[in-house]
């Protein structure tokens, strides 16, 4: 499964709710405001740290750049739209909005 998530972890509970439904080896792709979850040292960083223990976490590079985010949690991988489509080829996806 590929889980996509586009909400800030500070204003929405989508990320913490989504984590209950991620199985080992599932992939989580952060896009739009979801990429804020990938930043280090915040009050919500533990959520992605937890997700990384189970499976892969990607963050959309264009969304990170737009938001000036460079200090990412170790293990978060960068994705562009081609990578996103590659993940979509490999998995069915659910959008956590």
């Amino acid at each position, binding site marked *: *499964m590929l889980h996509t998530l586009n909400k800030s972890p500070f204003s929405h*509970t*989508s990320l913490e*709710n989504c984590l*209950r*439904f*991620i*199985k080992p080896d599932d992939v989580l792709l952060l896009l739009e405001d979801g990429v804020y979850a990938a930043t280090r040292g915040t009050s919500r960083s533990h959520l992605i740290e937890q997700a990384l223990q189970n499976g892969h976490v990607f963050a959309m590079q264009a969304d990170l750049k737009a938001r000036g985010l460079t200090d990412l949690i170790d293990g978060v991988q960068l994705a562009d739209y081609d990578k996103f489509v590659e993940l979509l080829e490999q998995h*069915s*996806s*659910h*959008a*956590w*909005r």
Partner: protein
Amino acid sequence: MSDAKKVMITVRKPPHGSIYVHEAIEVMFIVASFGLDLSVVFIDDGVLALKTGQDTKELGIKGFMASIGAFMDFEVTKVYVDRQSLEDRNMSEADLAFIGEDETTEQPVRPTILDSSAIAALMAEQQSLMAL
């Protein structure tokens, strides 16, 4: 039906503050009518859409309690609710609206409560997942 594509609709928004649930139900009825193998899962605030006793008259908007009661009539039969989401909202099975009647026993039927791991397993079986 076993060859039919497996499609899941997830409902995670609360009712009435926005039209999402209302329009999600319209999709359920159509998708079911096309013979797709439909599962519907209510997660997070979506479980609030199933609460008994909703009355939108004073709000001046159309509710959808009647549609929920007709789920099974419209072949929306696989209806699941996330247990944790219910507990967080102080809801129990008795708070859930009926979605139709059992064909043989004629007893009213409620959605099925599942743990998140069971829902995750169900998600993994789907060909398409629609978060509405």
